[in-house]
């Protein structure tokens, strides 16, 4: 019995080490912020921008602030799948490339997702405690997005 356990342990350690070799490209924007970025398109107050930065941009932009454990596989795979899904639904870095129709509907979706506490994801805030929206920051954020959304709606 014992040699089998030993073999298995060695095998899993080797597998774990081999896994570490897989380090795909990171979701990081080197250099300048894209001119298509949300914050370039709209005048975002610094308070709101800070909230977005801390609570949203990790998964919804081309610039993730990776934690140390992201270097460890298979954590990285899990994170990347989340980031890809997040970016597919809303990418602040490419917001300017969206059609006007899409921009409006995305603003509306942001409001609904934040209001219903669907976003930021619970699985994210459990680790990133500072990304959790406090009552106050939630109000600040919603207030600004709603105003923006209404002013765009009024212009059309």
């Amino acid at each position: 019995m014992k040699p089998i356990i030993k073999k298995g342990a060695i095998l899993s350690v080797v597998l774990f080490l081999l896994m570490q070799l897989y380090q795909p490209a990171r979701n990081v924007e080197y250099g300048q912020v894209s001119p298509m970025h949300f914050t370039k398109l709209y005048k975002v107050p610094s308070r709101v921008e800070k909230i977005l930065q801390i609570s949203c941009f990790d998964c919804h932009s081309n610039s993730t602030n990776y934690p140390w454990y992201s270097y460890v596989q298979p954590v990285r795979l899990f994170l990347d799948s989340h980031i890809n899904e997040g970016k597919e639904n809303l990418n602040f870095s490419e917001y300017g490339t969206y059609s006007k129709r899409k921009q409006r509907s995305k603003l509306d979706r942001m409001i609904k997702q934040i209001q219903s506490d669907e976003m930021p994801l619970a699985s994210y805030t459990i680790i990133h405690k500072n990304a959790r929206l406090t009552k106050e920051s939630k109000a600040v954020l919603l207030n600004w997005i709603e105003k923006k959304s209404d002013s765009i709606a009024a212009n059309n």
Partner: protein
Amino acid sequence: MKKIILSTVLMAIVVVGCNQKNKQEESVKPETTQSTSQLYSCPMHPEVTGKQGDTCSKCGMELTEPVVKTEAVSEEVKTEKVAVTPFSVTVDANVNDYLKVKNALVNDDSNGAAAAAKALLATFNAANTTSIDAKLKKEYIEIADEAKEHAEHIADNAGKIEHQREHFAMLSKDMNDMIKTFGTNKKLYQEYCPMYDQGKSGYWISDSKEIKNPYYGAEMLTCGRVEKEL
């Protein structure tokens, strides 16, 4: 003293009155300029209309004759219908699937809405866009992209009917714009529930004047009103 008070009051009334007049004028102005700038007709073929700078489809001359408003409305409807007939069939197919999504939501049937939205997505993907005028194509793609995204969300969220209804509100807007741009052979109505989403987005499209509310279902089945005929 009394005189001073009286005269200031009078002054205030005059000032306020004048301001209101100005505002009225301001609010009227953009409408008139818009309607006149909207349509021009060909000097040779008055039945051909378009925007300023467009050319006549029959003789190639620039459209220079401003169209009188009452005429403009009837002309606009006419030209729209002629221009869109080939694609209206596709719009109708999308609308048919959309109506199934709506009916499922009316019945509080989340799974049914998801299934119907899946069918709508397939219909959208199968749409043949070659018959669309190049100018309108961009608009169609924008509308269709959005509509598809909302259909996808409805399809993926069986069991979360509130979430589905949020996307249905936006899908309804896209469908409405699509019908407005490309026309339909169906008799449709835009209906509205002022209670939903603080009155912001509670529109839907129906083939019946009878109100059956897709945003609240059995909870408030008959809440709402017909906004307009499409």
